[in-house]
């Protein structure tokens, strides 16, 4: 089969755009295949620019996994920046995949990775640039099947009109199952609808057009029911039971241009043992599963050889919690010292152990240390179950100053449930105490420059967290709290950055929205919204206009306190953690009672019940049944 690509047309416009190298592909280790009649063509689509998308581990896993099948050719496609978009439209060039430069409209599948809500308009734009109908119901038999996965799909409803198939949960196993179904269907000569019905029978697959939603007079959901027999009333998330024996790439594409994470990011475990109550990742990625030391060392070694990266970063939600973290780091440091390959940890919690590790890793460089106490007072930290004490934080900071670090970044959230001005004052006080710690260190030990950077983000209530019922505070109140904090910070050594509250408000709308928001999304897109998470592209007035045009009250989604009995738009998804557990956690939050982490005790979140038919290996979960099983297996 011949490629039908736009190479020549693209080459003519590239010299006119800012980052031409991000539109040409051909990177080292990119995969090119011979097309045959049987080739299943899969476009892995990331609704943001190349530099962001190429830093995403999940896309790399799926690229390797899909291409490991002889008859599947997975390629990549990213959102073109505005200069490129304009030229593509002007010259009539449709959105193309980087490897073959073929229009993705000719593919069998386009699979979007949904990492943040504010990338949804980019998804619509990518469909439009591909000349594919935005709405699932308007698509032709010959159009690609549009699928989506990633953390945002735990509430897929705002995108229900646009996506044919959602994959709920980890996709290493379910995607190959879907491909099997596709191969069979292709031979059968049946219709697109038939394929979707077949797909709906696979565990973890959600086909939104096969469900009907009815609403109460007050706008809440009355019922959510399947309309065809193939569609399941409850969609169980998919998860991998044994990370050690699951596909992970041994080779990765090495970008020419500098990406956001321009290093080898290697996933060492999945899930997080801490139950921070604002955090969605902590719940949806349960149970915690580790890879063995040997598997990690061997896999990293292969990857370094094949890519030539000069730094390896141990990725997870909380890397310091890996059972053998110290051994792992010292093994890596030892093995790669001669080759000057650095080791880094992207997410560390606050304790002295971490400082020792950092010291080891950053033998020469003393850049900044980032700590995330999240809230300004112990009371509020107990509410959110962030089990970090001020004392620990100051000890860590003191150790860091003593070791020569001078820049400390502190991350907080404003607008957390039950937050008062006292908690805001607490943020300013912590920042000041951090500065005080610096001056306690003898002059000869400490860095000449000290800077404390306080950043606050705006709390966004997310599905599948104990705070999923909470109303967000409004933007005026966010702004007032930010100004108040600003007025409290007077020390010139403390710098204060804060997040745009309007963006967080919209995020709250779409994070917990239902399928009625589809038309708002489409309207905002038609009005010109793109790259909303880029502050210089974000146009809140257009969004306001879109809600008005669609006669939809955005406050209903973002600000309203939801009732315990309400049917939530995402209730049809079963993540293993029960709604009762989340509700109990909410009640404990209000009382300021903390919960323990999975490594120390079990809070009976429900995940053990959920996984009992698929016993998990190498879990950090301290549940007795699981541990016993684990030991008998080893």
């Amino acid at each position, binding site marked *: 089969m011949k490629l039908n690509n736009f190479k020549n047309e693209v080459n003519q416009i590239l*010299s006119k755009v800012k980052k031409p190298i991000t539109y040409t592909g*051909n990177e*080292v280790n990119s995969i090119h295949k011979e097309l045959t009649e049987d080739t299943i063509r899969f476009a892995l689509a990331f609704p943001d620019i190349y530099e962001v998308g190429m830093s995403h581990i999940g896309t790399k896993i799926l690229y390797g996994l899909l291409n490991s099948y002889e008859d599947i050719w997975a390629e990549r496609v990213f959102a073109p920046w505005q200069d490129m978009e304009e030229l593509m439209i002007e010259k009539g060039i449709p959105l193309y995949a980087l490897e073959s430069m073929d229009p993705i409209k000719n593919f069998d599948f386009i699979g979007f990775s949904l990492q943040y809500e504010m990338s949804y308009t980019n998804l619509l734009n990518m469909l439009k640039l591909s000349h594919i109908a935005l709405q699932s119901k308007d698509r032709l038999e010959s159009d690609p099947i549009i699928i989506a996965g990633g953390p945002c799909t735990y509430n897929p409803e705002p995108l229900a009109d646009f996506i044919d198939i959602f994959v709920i949960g980890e996709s290493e196993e379910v995607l190959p199952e879907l491909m099997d179904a596709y191969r069979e269907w292709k031979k059968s000569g049946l219709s697109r609808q038939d394929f979707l019905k077949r797909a709906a029978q696979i565990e973890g697959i959600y086909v939104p057009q096969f469900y009907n939603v009815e609403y109460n007079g007050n706008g809440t959901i009355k019922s959510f029911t399947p309309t065809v027999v193939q569609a399941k009333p409850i969609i169980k998330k998919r998860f991998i039971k044994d990370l050690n024996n699951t596909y992970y790439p041994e080779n990765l594409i090495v970008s020419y241009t500098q990406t956001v994470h321009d290093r080898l990011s290697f996933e060492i475990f999945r899930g997080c043992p801490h139950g921070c109550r604002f955090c969605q990742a902590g719940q949806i990625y349960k149970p915690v599963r580790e890879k063995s030391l040997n598997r990690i060392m061997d896999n990293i070694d292969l990857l370094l050889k094949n890519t030539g990266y*000069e730094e390896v970063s141990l990725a997870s939600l909380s890397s310091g919690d890996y059972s053998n973290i110290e051994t792992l780091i010292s093994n890596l440091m030892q093995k790669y010292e001669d080759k000057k390959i650095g080791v880094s940890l992207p997410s560390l919690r606050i304790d002295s152990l971490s400082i020792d590790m950092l010291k080891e890793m950053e033998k020469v460089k003393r850049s900044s240390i980032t700590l995330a106490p999240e809230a300004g007072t112990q009371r509020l930290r107990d509410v959110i179950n962030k089990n970090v004490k001020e004392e620990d934080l100051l000890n860590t900071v003191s150790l860091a100053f003593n070791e020569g670090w001078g820049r400390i970044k502190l991350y907080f959230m404003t607008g957390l449930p039950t937050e008062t001005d006292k908690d805001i004052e607490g943020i300013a006080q912590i920042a000041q105490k951090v500065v005080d710690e610096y001056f306690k260190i003898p002059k000869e030990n400490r860095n000449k420059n000290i800077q404390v950077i306080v950043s606050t983000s705006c709390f966004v209530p997310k599905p599948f967290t104990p705070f999923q019922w909470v109303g967000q505070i409004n933007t005026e109140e966010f702004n007032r709290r930010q100004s108040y904090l600003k007025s409290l910070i007077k020390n010139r050594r403390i710098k204060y950055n804060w997040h745009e509250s309007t963006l967080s408000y919209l995020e709250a709308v779409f994070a917990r929205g239902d399928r009625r928001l589809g038309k708002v999304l489409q309207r905002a897109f038609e009005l010109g919204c793109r790259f909303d998470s880029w502050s210089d592209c974000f146009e809140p007035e257009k969004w306001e206009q879109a809600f008005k045009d669609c006669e939809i009250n955005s406050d209903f989604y973002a600000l309203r306190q939801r009732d315990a009995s309400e049917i939530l738009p995402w209730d049809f998804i079963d993540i293993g953690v029960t709604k009762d557990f989340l509700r109990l956690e909410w009640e404990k939050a209000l009382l300021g009672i903390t919960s323990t982490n999975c490594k120390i005790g079990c809070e009976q979140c429900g995940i053990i019940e959920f996984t009992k038919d698929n016993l998990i290996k190498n879990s950090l979960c301290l549940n007795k049944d699981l541990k016993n099983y684990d030991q008998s297996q080893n």
Partner: protein
Amino acid sequence: MIKVRIKFKRGEELRFLSHLDQHRMFTRALRRADLPISFSHGFNPHPIISFANALSVGMTSDSEYVDIGLDLDSDEEINLKQLHKTLQSVLPKGIKISKVEILPEGAKSLTRIIEYADYDITCTDLHVTDIDSFNDQLNDFVNQEVIEIESVNKKGKKKVRNIRPAFETIEAIKQQKDVILFHIRMIPVENSLLSPEKVILTFLGQINYYGNKLNITSHRKDLVINEDL
């Protein structure tokens, strides 16, 4: 440490590499080849690798040079043929190695030994009725002793500089209707080469050429180095 000089071509596939991209790409290729890379000393050790001259984004070239340092005691440990093969195998399509040689101790750095560089600059949408009189105009341009252009630096400050010493000869050839090929030889000034496109554009400005928006593709045909400089 043994220094190895590599001569290579950069083709269409990689013409949009920036200098930094190219540097990073070579460094990672050396690591993939598992060669004993030499590192600089100091707080932040980095591989010893240096290019003769930055090739602009969008340009292809038949003649690029890079020197790399290898942590070996004597050059007898190197099999040049094998090294050539190994390096080529880890480099992407679009980079073709034409020569690998071992440098004698104390060899001058690449940036100091550039004698001149020849370019082919192709302008499409450049309307020229009579190529001979166009070349006469070009000769008049070349025969000036001083050609001053104004440039704005990063801080927004205006600076006037004389670009005449930065090139030697220019010649225009009409390839087809509205396609003009310029041969231009550039000479380094203070160890760096001016962009040949800048010279062409300055010339077109001087003869008051106001045509369509030009489409320019540039190719470095030769970069000549001379150890005796």
